[in-house]
């Protein structure tokens, strides 16, 4: 592809994405009370996760090598990544099985844009950005308690690693959603993945080497997605290799996800015709 056509493709997708954003704003403003209540729900669950660890730290000084405020920083970062994921991808991934079931996917396949692009980014959950902000506030508070003064480069690295974590979540969830091409009721599977988010907010050092840790590091890298960025910020990284591992796993998940998606679309026979 020559640079000119690449630029025009990007420009077109960007303008489509802006239109999708406008749509989402209009849709959300139609149900204002509901919009606010969802923010309350998410905040409540965030507070609940925090209070679980505050209760544990009533009885202990450390969990493995992690102090209280380090864990709060971790929960904040994990919530930060998860809410960004909700903002951009979550409901789109959940809806994929509906598109397959109702045959609406036909229509989406015919659109003159990349199909995965339009399926993944159709709806934006604006309320999630409020929760992103509350996660940021908790992280800043925890960093102050830890007397952390990160250099600008460290903050940049943290954000890039969070981006890698976000991409990992998206790749895996989209791969699972693609299962809906085989079994129509895939929503349960997609929600099952939601359970795995709970693992992402646990300090990785709490797990002794074994099957559990290996699976959630090298197969479904839940123990990397938020641990690695926080370890960079809190100066807890054993070696820079950990960052490479997260980036490498992100790339691997993205490739597998794209492969799975292509296999699935090839099988698609349409529900309505």
């Amino acid at each position, binding site marked *: 592809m020559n640079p000119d056509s690449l630029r025009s493709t990007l420009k077109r997708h960007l303008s489509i994405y802006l239109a999708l954003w406008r749509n989402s704003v209009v849709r959300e403003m139609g*149900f204002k009370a509901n919009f606010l*209540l969802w923010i309350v729900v998410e905040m409540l*669950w965030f507070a609940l996760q925090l209070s679980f660890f505050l*209760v544990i730290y009533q009885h202990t000084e450390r969990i493995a090598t992690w102090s209280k405020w380090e864990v709060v920083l971790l929960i904040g970062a994990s919530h930060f990544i998860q809410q960004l994921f909700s903002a951009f991808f979550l409901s789109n991934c959940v809806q994929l099985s509906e598109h397959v079931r109702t045959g609406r996917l036909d229509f989406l396949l015919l659109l003159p844009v990349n199909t995965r692009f339009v399926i993944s980014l159709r709806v934006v959950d604006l309320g999630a950005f409020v929760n992103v902000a509350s996660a940021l506030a908790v992280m800043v508070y925890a960093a102050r308690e830890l007397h952390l003064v990160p250099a600008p480069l460290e903050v940049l690295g943290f954000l890039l690693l969070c981006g890698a974590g976000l991409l990992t979540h998206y790749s895996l969830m989209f791969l699972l959603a693609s299962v809906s091409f085989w079994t129509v009721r895939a929503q349960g599977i997609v929600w099952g993945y939601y*359970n795995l988010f709970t693992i992402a907010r646990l300090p990785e050092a709490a797990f002794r080497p074994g099957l559990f840790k290996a699976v959630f590091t090298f197969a479904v890298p839940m123990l990397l997605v938020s641990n690695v960025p926080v370890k960079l910020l809190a100066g807890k990284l054993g070696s820079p290799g950990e960052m490479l591992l997260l980036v490498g796993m992100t790339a691997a998940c993205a490739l597998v996800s794209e492969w799975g998606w292509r296999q699935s679309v090839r099988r698609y026979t349409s529900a309505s015709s």
Partner: protein
Amino acid sequence: MSLTANKYWHVVNIGIQNTLVYRINFLFRAAFGLVPLMATIYLWRAVYASNPDNPAVGGYTLAGMTSYYLLTTIVDALTAVTDDDWQIAGDIKDGNISQFLLKPIDYLTYRLCLFGAGRLIYTAVAVVPVALFIFAQRAFFVLPTDALTLGCFLLSTVMTALLQFLISYSMALLAFWVLEVSTFIFILFAFEYIAGGHLFPLDILPPLAVQLLNYTPFPYQLYFPVSVYLGRVTGAALWQGLIIQALWVLAAYALARFAWRRGIKHYSAVGG
């Protein structure tokens, strides 16, 4: 009387057949649900390993803590409301409820039968992953000390199921007044999750917090039967607890009936 029993027995049968369709979904749900549980148990192990000089955090040894979580998994599989509240709200929103107003069938009893059928199938499916999991952790699995404890545990578990159902039922009836009840369901669920003892045994909280929680129905939605099983509630406290739990069930039943009567007056049969 036998005609009535017969009628609802059919409902149970239909419920069983309908939920069997979702057996794979249930299997995934039960299996995926074990992952966070396993993570929580590992987390506690790390806590105990970090405090070698304190073998009993809040009165629980590591073995006691592990068996607490194993028991919550079992009681939860037997009693949790998973989809019923969404279906009830859906029935009201879509106007499906109109047909129940015309038929000689009591909606609450009807839903209770479906709930029972759903729990039966869910438990049957979840038995496989849960049994494997408990087998892996069998060193921490304890049996109740005597037949009386077991009996009280079973009685309390039945009341827990009723309480879970009735509270969710009343909550779902909010759909008579508001269009979108899912946020309210999630808010209630959050309270049940932390104050019911899903996350941690409630008695590791400061005593004042425990006392306050005991004035709410939440501990009776999970924590109480588990503590009965583990022999942490005995003697007068046990009988007192069972009576309070029964009173909460009655209160929830009264609320459910009351909300239904008010709701029906408000109902406009959209789409029906």
